[in-house]
């Protein structure tokens, strides 16, 4: 039996209400026991005094780009970035080349992840063949192969009838439909939020309504079909109102928010830095306040990154031609830890929204230290302050607008099924706690 004891850490597992200094025993890659300090023994130990140990984060919205766009990211580099950000499970979107709209592609992704991954990979299948919004993809076959949700993500289903059928059909397999809500006809050529900033910069605007129109439609369709809808990356105050009202009515809807919509506003676009070009666009401070209120009152279930890697040359184009998207796996936790300091969420609430909540939405056995579950865990140093250094990212891409930001709260070590998949450089120097020692 291979045993590893994580000693002396403050263990935080919101799924089980654990929030105390404990020892955690891993046996053969599984959580074997949790007990008071000193109550458990193992030959190999990992001293985590002064650190928080939490279930590995779950990102329900990632773009790994493989197959097809390996110059942006691969399953190897994307999951390495995930591990560096404390994520042990990621759900990857279907907009690869070929599109993940059939079981062969699903199986390819899963096999690549098994061979090269530093995190668990859960593929999300396409709603429609080729993301064309015309006919349903082979959702059932993909479900058998292992998809955890369906989504056409950046090519939102325009046809309301097809969306209705997708919701109904996916419910047969217990899969949620993840909707990137955007009525593209409302923002032709749009590249940024519609606001005073777009007026000054003269960039084509995307009003809040182009998101909210589709949030409203999809909520009505979820209500009609009694099927599960998950709204991706809500970014506007209006979307929060719509989801909050729907939840009160008992509509089976959940939603997520990204760190960049919480910590940046459209003012950032004034730099014309293409790393700030993202869809949905960065909104206003008022929207940011509404998102915080949504986190506080539980309207927002999960935090997801929408990690969207793009090669440098594509981001060196002018603002309209550069693609949408920014990377987020390696900055999500330290940014979101600000929510705790701001008093928006308690630490357990934050951790829940990055672990058990997304795991529940996707119905995956993750985000918890349940006895017998895979020992996926993340060790955090909440005291550690540092500047974000884009140059050190594991991701293949660098399209991140947070370079140079001073943050607090560092991922020092990530374990996947009991195996260390990430260890921060200097982890041993600046603190004794993450050092490994052999007793005996």
């Amino acid at each position, binding site marked *: 039996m291979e045993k590893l004891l994580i000693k002396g850490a403050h263990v935080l597992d919101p799924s089980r209400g654990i929030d105390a200094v404990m020892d955690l025993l891993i046996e053969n890659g599984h959580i074997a026991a949790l007990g008071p300090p000193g109550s458990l023994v193992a030959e190999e130990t990992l001293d985590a005094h002064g650190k928080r140990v939490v279930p590995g984060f779950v990102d329900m919205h990632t773009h790994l780009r493989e197959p097809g766009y390996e110059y942006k990211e691969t399953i190897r580099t994307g999951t390495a970035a995930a591990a560096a950000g404390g994520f042990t499970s990621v759900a990857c979107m279907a907009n690869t080349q070929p599109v993940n709209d059939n079981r062969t592609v699903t199986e390819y992704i899963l096999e690549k992840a098994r061979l090269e991954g530093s995190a668990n990979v859960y593929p999300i299948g396409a709603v429609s063949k080729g993301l064309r919004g015309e006919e349903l993809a082979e959702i059932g076959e993909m479900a058998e192969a292992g998809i955890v949700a369906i989504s056409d993500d950046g090519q939102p289903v325009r046809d309301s009838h097809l969306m209705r059928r997708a919701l109904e059909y996916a419910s047969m397999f217990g899969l949620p439909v993840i909707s990137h809500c955007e009525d593209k006809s409302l923002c032709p050529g749009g590249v940024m939020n519609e*606001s005073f900033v*777009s*007026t*000054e910069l003269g*960039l084509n605007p995307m009003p809040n309504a182009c998101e909210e129109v589709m949030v409203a439609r999809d909520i009505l369709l979820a209500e009609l079909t009694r099927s599960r809808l998950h709204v991706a990356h809500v970014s506007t105050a209006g979307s929060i109102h719509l989801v909050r009202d729907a939840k009160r009515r008992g509509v089976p809807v959940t939603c997520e928010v990204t760190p960049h919509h919480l910590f940046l506003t459209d003012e950032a676009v004034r*730099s014309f830095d293409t790393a700030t070009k993202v869809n949905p666009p960065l909104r206003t401070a008022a929207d940011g306040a509404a998102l915080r209120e949504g986190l506080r009152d539980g309207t927002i279930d999960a935090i997801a990154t929408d990690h969207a890697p793009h090669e440098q040359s594509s981001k*060196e184009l002018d603002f*309209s*031609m550069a693609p949408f998207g920014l990377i987020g796996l390696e900055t999500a936790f330290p940014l979101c830890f600000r929510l705790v300091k701001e008093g928006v969420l308690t630490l357990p609430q934050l951790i829940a929204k990055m672990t058990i909540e997304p795991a529940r939405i996707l119905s995956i056995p993750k985000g918890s230290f349940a006895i017998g579950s895979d020992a996926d865990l993340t060790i955090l140093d909440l005291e550690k302050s540092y500047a974000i250094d884009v140059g050190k990212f594991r991701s293949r891409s660098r399209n991140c607008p947070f370079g140079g930001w001073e943050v607090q709260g560092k991922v020092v070590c990530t374990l996947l099924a009991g195996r260390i998949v990430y260890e921060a450089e200097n982890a041993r120097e600046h603190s004794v706690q993450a050092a490994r020692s052999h007793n005996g």
Partner: protein
Amino acid sequence: METNAHFARKDILGLEDLSAEEILTVLDVARSFREVSEREVKKVPTLRGQTVINLFYEPSTRTRTSFELAAKRLSADVVNFTVSESSAVKGETLIDTARNIESMHSDIIVVRHPVSGAPQLLARAVKSSVINAGDGAHEHPSQGLLDLFTIKEHKGKFEGIKVLIVGDISHSRVARSDIYGMTKLGIEVTVCGPPTFIPVEIGKMGVRVTCDFDEALAETDVIMMLRIQKERQHGGLYPSVKEYARFFGLNRDRLSRAKSDVLIMHPGPVNRGVEISPEIADCTQSLILEQVSNGVAVRMALLYLLSRGAYGKAAH
């Protein structure tokens, strides 16, 4: 030579960035250069040995020609580099193009680009000075400056002058540069057009907004008519040229209700019979051709000030 301590800039990207003092400096220098264009030998040696590149990603006749003449009258070497959008689509990024051009030892790059922010991107990537000759619907600083120059020549002052800008404000870089420049100098600006042409929250730029041309006309000292792009019709922004002209076209009947000394300006090219009726475009109050002449002087001033700025930095 007068000093230009308050013009130590590498680039001129927009009037949002320039202070009132800097704007007045440009106008003063432009005034001294206007005389050069009126000489028999229209040339001074000020920029001899310097290379100016006109990098145009959009078709433009008058702005490019104006910059070209301005550079030539200052004895600079000028190269026109026109990039069709199709070749840009083929993959060479703006930054690549700029670095290539700079390898030929340019001193000043004058750039026109269909997308807001492209000159900013360029300015960060190259050591040459960059002049924005119009970016998307963002800014067109040399046009804004020549409009100010023209107003000053006729009104003798800026403070308290009332300017009415009429047309597609949303898609107009001229409107934005005019607004930035004019409000900094104490001009009262009103923008006018159908709501589909008025971008959100534009009042925060310090302007009054109205859809009633006739009402706004009565008070105004200068009417700035913007060019209406016929393609916008397809975007549902206005129903027809005929209907637009009825509500927002400047014609003799409307003009009769304005102040008798009202000035008429237009950044060109004029759509006769659309935003402005033919007899108005040519009337004595129209400054449209004068704007074009003043444009050369203003652009000479910009080229001169940037080259002196570079000089100052090198001497440091």
